């Protein structure tokens, strides 16, 4: 991993002017004469840097501004204020040399042509990205291997299953061996096996080509498997930028203790926050630093059949992050 900065955002802002329209006929007529607008700040002063070769997870709930940020990074959207640089280029100038080095994979959008074989779509990209035939063939072979595309290349895209199509979309997006990958929900809708395969592929691609990856996902497994670093966004603002483990430590200072007791109906509120009681099974939330002490107390004081100490899931942590920000 080199020290060069591949991606830099500096107080980046994007504000949309959205027309407001009340329902109803009178309002519709009024809006012909007087258009009302509302300003939506989709991205508010976000700053961070990504070094060349890093894989960064971009987290946030729906509507947080992740996709807007990715679109500004890939040149689709014009920033309202602030600066953004990718490989030294200003993305929205859409320099040809810039576009040849990046790719944006949006999980729910097709770039492949529906009715013709996948290889024809690949050939189209070859021409557009000015790839030499030899180099192109080698890349296709490599991607076919890594993604197990096999005999998919000769089939029209409409005949592929969702998982097969996604694999081909990812391959098509990487034919020009971009240095920067923007991936917006790349594993959405895929089954568990396919998700794992895509994750392995991305890790391999990153290692092989030192590609910088910015990845948004709702699947924590994607983030855990691939990203050392996460950037959390909510309501257009940066909430956290750092190590995933640190995120967990900072925003979730609790652990869960699940107890199986010999008796039912015992009150454990003295030991910690009782999350749930199900007959003789009680779940407690305790501060992390006191886990050992409280566990000891529970084992000493109570008729415990079984006891487990659990880390909160990443999902719960993220929920905590968002809940705290809202509060």
């Amino acid at each position: 991993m080199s020290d060069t900065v591949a991606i830099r955002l500096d107080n980046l802002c994007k504000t949309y002017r959205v027309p407001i329209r009340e329902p109803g006929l009178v309002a519709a007529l009024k809006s012909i004469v007087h258009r009302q607008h509302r300003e939506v700040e989709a991205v508010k002063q976000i700053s961070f840097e990504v070094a060349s070769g890093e894989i960064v997870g971009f987290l946030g709930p729906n509507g947080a501004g992740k996709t807007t940020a990715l679109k500004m990074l890939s040149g689709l959207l014009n920033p309202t204020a602030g600066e953004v640089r990718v490989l030294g280029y200003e993305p929205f100038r859409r320099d040809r040399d810039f576009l040849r080095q990046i790719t944006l994979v949006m999980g729910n959008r097709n770039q492949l042509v529906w009715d013709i074989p996948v290889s024809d779509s690949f050939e189209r990209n070859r021409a557009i990205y000015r790839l030499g035939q030899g180099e192109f063939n080698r890349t296709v072979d490599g991607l076919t291997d890594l993604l197990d595309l096999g005999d998919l290349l000769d089939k029209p895209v409409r005949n592929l299953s969702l998982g097969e199509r996604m694999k081909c979309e990812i391959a098509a997006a990487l034919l020009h061996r971009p240095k920067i990958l923007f991936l917006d929900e790349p594993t959405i809708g895929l089954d568990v096996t396919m998700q794992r395969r895509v994750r392995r592929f991305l890790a391999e691609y990153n290692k092989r080509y030192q590609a910088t990856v910015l990845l948004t996902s709702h699947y924590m497994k994607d983030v855990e498997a691939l990203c050392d670093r996460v950037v959390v966004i909510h309501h257009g603002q940066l909430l956290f930028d750092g190590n995933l483990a640190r995120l967990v430590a900072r925003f979730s200072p609790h652990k869960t203790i699940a107890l199986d007791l010999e008796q039912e109906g015992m009150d454990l509120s003295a030991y910690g926050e009782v999350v749930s009681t199900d007959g003789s099974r009680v779940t407690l939330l305790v501060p992390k630093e006191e886990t050992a002490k409280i566990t000891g107390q529970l084992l000493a004081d109570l008729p415990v059949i079984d006891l487990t100490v659990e880390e909160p899931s990443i999902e719960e942590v993220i929920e905590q992050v968002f809940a705290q920000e809202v509060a």
Partner: protein
Amino acid sequence: MSRFTDIYTTLFKISVAIMLQYRAVLIIWLIGLVLQPIIYLVVWLTVAETQGGQVGDFDKGGLAAYFIVLMIVNHATFDWHMYEMGYRVRTGAFSPLLLQPLHPIHRDIIENVAYKFITLSVMLPAVFLLIWLFEPTFGAPMWAVAAFVPALLLAFLVRFFVEWSLALLAFWITDTSGLNQMYAVASIFLMGQMAPLSLMPQWVQFAAGVLPFRWMVAFPVELLLGRLSPEQVVDGFLMQALWLGLGLAGLALTWNRAARRYSAVGA
């Protein structure tokens, strides 16, 4: 240049392959392009019939020749992307195009040419059929026939660039169907599609000549029919060059501004 050769030949082949899958769409446009002149021809022939076989300076053979050549020129110069632009902007279908290192206009030009190439197989028989049915009279000198080729090419370029630039209004106006309709109606009169321009009132002829419409369609038609003097032809080429320049300038000015307004909706 070799970069564009590769792009154009590869994308042309793929456009043809794609369009052959969407035969219904091909046919819809083709029906309009073939039927429209036939309908107007039949109407004008009927009018001529009631006026002793003549309408203005066109006899029946002349009218038939006009509309058959019009059909060819209209087919060669027509483009539909103006109607697609609104859809592309509204649904975010522009996004994949903007992410690639190729100006979207190239794809549209290639698609257009691929369409003409495929539909030629229907247009040519239609032309021969109409020649057999309506007995047009052609009498153009050889120089006019030779001049027709560059005039047709220029007409295509003028029409394509002017219409593509106008289509970019879709980045500012959400619903361009009203504008497109207005343009389509204006075209029917001012391009000489409904009737030869010489049969139209003076003000229509003036408007058609001052605006690009005459140079997009009517001019090459009149040229191939031998209805223009050499001086008029030279003037015509100059007007085509002027409008091509204006179209390209309009495109250069609007494209960057249009792309900046793009809000990439629809994910």
